[in-house]
Structure formats: structure tokens, C-alpha cells
């Protein structure tokens, strides 16, 4: 077998595309249309979150009792002033949707990052050091898991006082354990694989082994877990905000709007449907993009995907010619 028989395609360059030029990254992403759509939607949501005050046609907190529960513009009783209608206090649903993206994304991303990095770090240490360190860390995890999450959250918020940043810290505080358990389990089994022993025999220290040999091989399960957690956090944020312990009015979030709108669900579908759709679309986009990312960071999977793409292209040209 020789590597030189085949022309080396761009996708087989040694480093994952994220570290190469962004142009290469986009070119590779473009080949997977679903992932590209997901990525584009995520960029859109981020831009909307940043520029919400400029884009929103109304003040998201401005109430107008006279025009409450106006249906979306394209329905019979709709008004052109309110594209997606108004909620039970007469607030513009579209403007709230744009502003809500800010809190939802902020909370979701920062909780996953905060809880994820703390949980992963502890899991790495517990799994790699083993022995007493492992026992202590895992017993702490057990205590946290056994403690009712909502009660812990309520306690902490009551102590610190409700605000968006409090909610981020509190949600991270009650959600880091799952990362620790997952990572510790994988590290334990990975410690026994020969390539870790090989690294130790070569003289690598624990820091290098964790950083270069264990962490990169944890990417696929961690990506999957982080996405699932992201969805959970959006919903947890909604629950907390609904209880008045999270995002504080006049600020808003998608979760808060759903929570508020659900009492009127039977007479007005729009205040709850649009933020719900926004959450669903965001989570779907994250999923599509993350599954592409998972393949991209795995050298073997990446080459297989590239080969499949080439085979498809060849079939297409041959059927066109014939």
C-alpha cells in the first residue's frame, strides 16, 4: 500500500479545518448542506442577539392593554404593526423574540461552558489520578446528584438574589456532575489502553497525557453531552425565570415567554409557538453543526466522509456522461 498513489485531497490535510484558514473550514462545511444550514442559522441567532435593540420594531417591554392578544399579521384579525402578534399584555411577540435570544443564548452557552469545563477538569483528575483523589471527587459528585437540583437552585438564588448572572452560576453549580461522571468513566477505561501506556513509557508527564492524549479522544462524547445539556439548560432557565428567580423583567428570554404564554395557550397559540420554534430551531442547528464537527475532529471518520463525497461526485459525473 502506498500513500502516494492517490492525489492527496485538501480534506486530508493533517490538522482539523478549524485550525486551518477559515476559508478551508467553510469549504468543507459547505459540502454538508444540513450542517451548513445549521451553522448559518446559529450565526443568524447570534447576530440577532447582538443587534436586537436595532432590529426590534417595538420596545419588548411596552405594554398596550387595548391591543392585547392580537394574532399574527397574516391572520384575519392580525395587525401589520405586530408581525407575530402580541401577548396577553399587548407586548410585541416579534420584538420579544429578538430580545429573548440574548438571555437564552447567554445562559445556555455560558452554563454549558462553565459547568462543562469544571466538570471535565474534575473528571480528568479523578479518572487519571485514581485512588483517594478519585474517591473524594466522586463522593462529592454523589452528594450533589443526590441533592434535589431545584431545591439547591432555589436555596442559592434566595441567598444571592435573583439575576441573570446568578442564574448562570447556579445552573452551572447544579449541572457539572454529569460531565465529571462521563469523563471519569471514559478516562478510567482509556487509561488501560496501550497508547496511554506508550505515552507514559515515552516519558510524558500527566499534564501532557491529559491534554494531548486523553482530551482529544473525549471530544465525541463530550460534544453529544454538551448539546443535550444545552437543551436542558434552556428549559431550566425557562422554569427559573417563570418562578421569578431567573431573567428579571423587563428583560426577557424564550423560556420566560413560553412560561408566560402557556396560560393563554388555548385562546392564543402565537405567544408560545414562536419562542418554542426558536428554541427547537436553535437546538436542531446546534445538533446538525455538532455532528459535523464531531466527524471533522476525528481523523478516520473525516477521511471516510471525504471518500464518500468523492465517490458520490464520481457517480454523478459518470451518469451525466453516460
Amino acid at each position, binding site marked *: 500500500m502506498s500513500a502516494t498513489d492517490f492525489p492527496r485531497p485538501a480534506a486530508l490535510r493533517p490538522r482539523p479545518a478549524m485550525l486551518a484558514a477559515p476559508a478551508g473550514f467553510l469549504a468543507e462545511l459547505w459540502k454538508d448542506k444540513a450542517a451548513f444550514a445549521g451553522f448559518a442559522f446559529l450565526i443568524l441567532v447570534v447576530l440577532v442577539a447582538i443587534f436586537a435593540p436595532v432590529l426590534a420594531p417595538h420596545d419588548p417591554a411596552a405594554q398596550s392593554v387595548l391591543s392585547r392578544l392580537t394574532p399574527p399579521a397574516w391572520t384575519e384579525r392580525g395587525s401589520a404593526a405586530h408581525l407575530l402578534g402580541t401577548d396577553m399584555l399587548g407586548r410585541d411577540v416579534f420584538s420579544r423574540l429578538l430580545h429573548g435570544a440574548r438571555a437564552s443564548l447567554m445562559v445556555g452557552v455560558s452554563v454549558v461552558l462553565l459547568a462543562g469545563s469544571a466538570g471535565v477538569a474534575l473528571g480528568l483528575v479523578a479518572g487519571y489520578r485514581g485512588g483517594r483523589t478519585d474517591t473524594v471527587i466522586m463522593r462529592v459528585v454523589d452528594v450533589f446528584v443526590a441533592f434535589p437540583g431545584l431545591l439547591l437552585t432555589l436555596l442559592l438564588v434566595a441567598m444571592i438574589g435573583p439575576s441573570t448572572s446568578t442564574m448562570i452560576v447556579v445552573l452551572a453549580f447544579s449541572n457539572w456532575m454529569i460531565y465529571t461522571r462521563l469523563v471519569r468513566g471514559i478516562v478510567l477505561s482509556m487509561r488501560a489502553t496501550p497508547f496511554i501506556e506508550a505515552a507514559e513509557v515515552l*516519558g510524558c508527564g500527566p499534564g501532557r497525557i491529559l491534554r494531548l492524549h486523553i482530551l482529544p*479522544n473525549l471530544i465525541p462524547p463530550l460534544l453529544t453531552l454538551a448539546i443535550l445539556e444545552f437543551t436542558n439548560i434552556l428549559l431550566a432557565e425557562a422554569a427559573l425565570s417563570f418562578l421569578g428567580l431567573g431573567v428579571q423583567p423587563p428583560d426577557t428570554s424564550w423560556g420566560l415567554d413560553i412560561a408566560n404564554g402557556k396560560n393563554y395557550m388555548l385562546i392564543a397559540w402565537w405567544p408560545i409557538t414562536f419562542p418554542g420554534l426558536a428554541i427547537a430551531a436553535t437546538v436542531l442547528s446546534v445538533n446538525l453543526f455538532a455532528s459535523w464537527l464531531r466527524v471533522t475532529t476525528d481523523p*478516520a471518520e473525516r477521511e471516510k466522509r471525504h471518500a464518500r463525497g468523492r465517490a458520490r461526485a464520481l457517480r454523478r459525473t459518470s451518469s451525466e456522461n453516460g
Partner: protein
Amino acid sequence: MTRFPGPIRAQDPAPAPLPLLSVRGLAVDFDGPRSRIWGPPSRVRVLEDISFDLAPGETLGLVGESGSGKSTLGRAVLRRLPLADGRIVFDGRDITHLPLAERRALSRDIQMVFQDPYTSLNPRMTVLELIAEPLIVHGLAPGPEAARDRVAELLRLVNLPPENIDRFPHGFSGGQRQRIGIARALALRPKLIIADEPVSALDVSVRAQVVNLMQDLQQELGISYLFVAHDLSIVRHISHRIAILHRGRMVEMADCDTLYDSPAHPYTSTLLQAVPEPDPRHRRGTPTAPPPAPRMADLVMEGGACRYCRSCPKVADRCHAEAPALARQPGRDRWVACWEA
């Protein structure tokens, strides 16, 4: 080559040339079953009274059935396992008790080639990163790119085309991966390589290539090998001397021809009889039944008896009472641990 293997005893002449590695009375314990649920684990002696010398540029083959402790011996020499007893001197330096940092530094001189080339290479590192890693870890290169020329040179040394330098290991065959593993071990120019069944996971057709490569490298670079294997024909091909392990004890050690042509220990003969003979006209007689595999409980309970006495065809009363030590046969370069030999 003059060799003085085996335990040093009062009547031995002083070893003439300095051996690269000399092991004396090495013993390793593992945790065994507990007698009570909360009680301390019992200790199982998995290696006992192992002594040998290894000269520079020499290959010592370690042979034994599974569970005989041959891989454990390799890891004990690498100082990856705590020793229960004994002494290891490497290159004139006592490495029996080494702090962790010095043990890491020792990896410049003692390297290892692993059994399974499919799991011993990190799938997310390129060939360049894999082979450059030892150089980086030991401060010989700041990063993979700086080591590119060295790595290309190492790839040529193990007969792999250097164009493959930026590829990932999953694109290579087993034999090619094992060459990458060997290049990795060679990067630091070690004096001793512990090869833990380096070809047993490979296809039969490429075994010879890898073994020949290892021999060529030995001649070129003067490396010593501790070659662990259970394939007797390959061991004979590569080794200068062979040591037979049985249940954690060395039962016989001699140069290849002596050992294969006239085995002295009854276990060695049984082992050799188990090798299939490719020529049907050439019969060696029916092999005796293979000895039953050791159970951990047996190892715990065994006291002073010879560990082979239950399966030994030549067993005598003395074998049940006292275990024979590895001793040099008078006038020969052969070491046997048997009362009857």
C-alpha cells in the same frame, strides 16, 4: 560474546565486561484475593528470583505460556511496577529505587515496543506528532514541526516512505503501524528496547519483515532487546539467548541452539514438543499433555514446592519439599532450575 548470566554466587568468577542490564533476585507481587471482605488483599508472587544479565547489542528472548510473567518482567525492568525484592542495575547505575522524575528520564535509555499496533498509537495524532513526541517530551525539539527532519530520517530508518509523515495511523496496515511504533521507540536512541510480543498481533506474512527490521536496527545501532514472545520459532530467529519462564520463575536459560537441541528442564522439553512440525515425515513423537494453566489460588498456596511439580514427568520427592534455584550447569553456559537436570 562472553556472558555471565544468572545470580551472582560466591563461587562465580567476577563478570568480565559490564552488562548493559543486570537483574538479580527480582520479585514482583500483585494483590490477590482477600481472605475476609474487608481484610487486606493477599499477596501473589507473580515473579520470583529472576536473575539475568544482558550484554550491549544482545537479544534475550523471554518465553513462557500466558500468565508466566514475561510481560510483567518487561514492565518491571521499565520500572513501571513496584518491586517486592531484588535489584536492577542498568548501564552501571542502580535503578531499583528511582524517584518518579528520574524514572521518566530513564525512558531516554529504555524504550518499549508494544504488542498491539492498532491500539498503541493515538488515533488523533499524525505520524509526525507521534514520532516527534519523545523528542519534545525530553526537550530535544520545541515542537513537532521543528522535528520534521529527524522524524523523516527515522521513517527512512524503519523503511517507511517519509511522504507519509502527515498522515494519521488509521491509514496504515498492522506492519506499517508497528514500524511507526519502532520509530517512536528509536527516536531517543535508547540502549535497550523491551519488545512485548511485537509481532504476535501481526499477520504471519509481515512478521518476518518486522523481526528482520529489528535485527537490522540492532546491528546498525547496537541496541539490546528484551524480546518477549510465545512464538518459539520467531524467538529462536531473533534471540542470542533464551530464557524460559514458568509461573513467575525462570526455569532455564541458555543460548538458542543449546536450548532447542537439548532442553534440560522438563518444562522446556514440553514447550518445545508443543511446536507444530511443518514436515509430516518428520515426527517428534506425541507431545505430552500441556500443563494446566496456573490459577491464582494455586500461586497463593504454593509454598516451597517447585511450581512445575504437579505436571512434571520427572517429579521426585524433593520437588515437593523444596524449589530448585536457577543454577549454572558445571562447565556450560546454561542455567537450569531443576533438581533432576
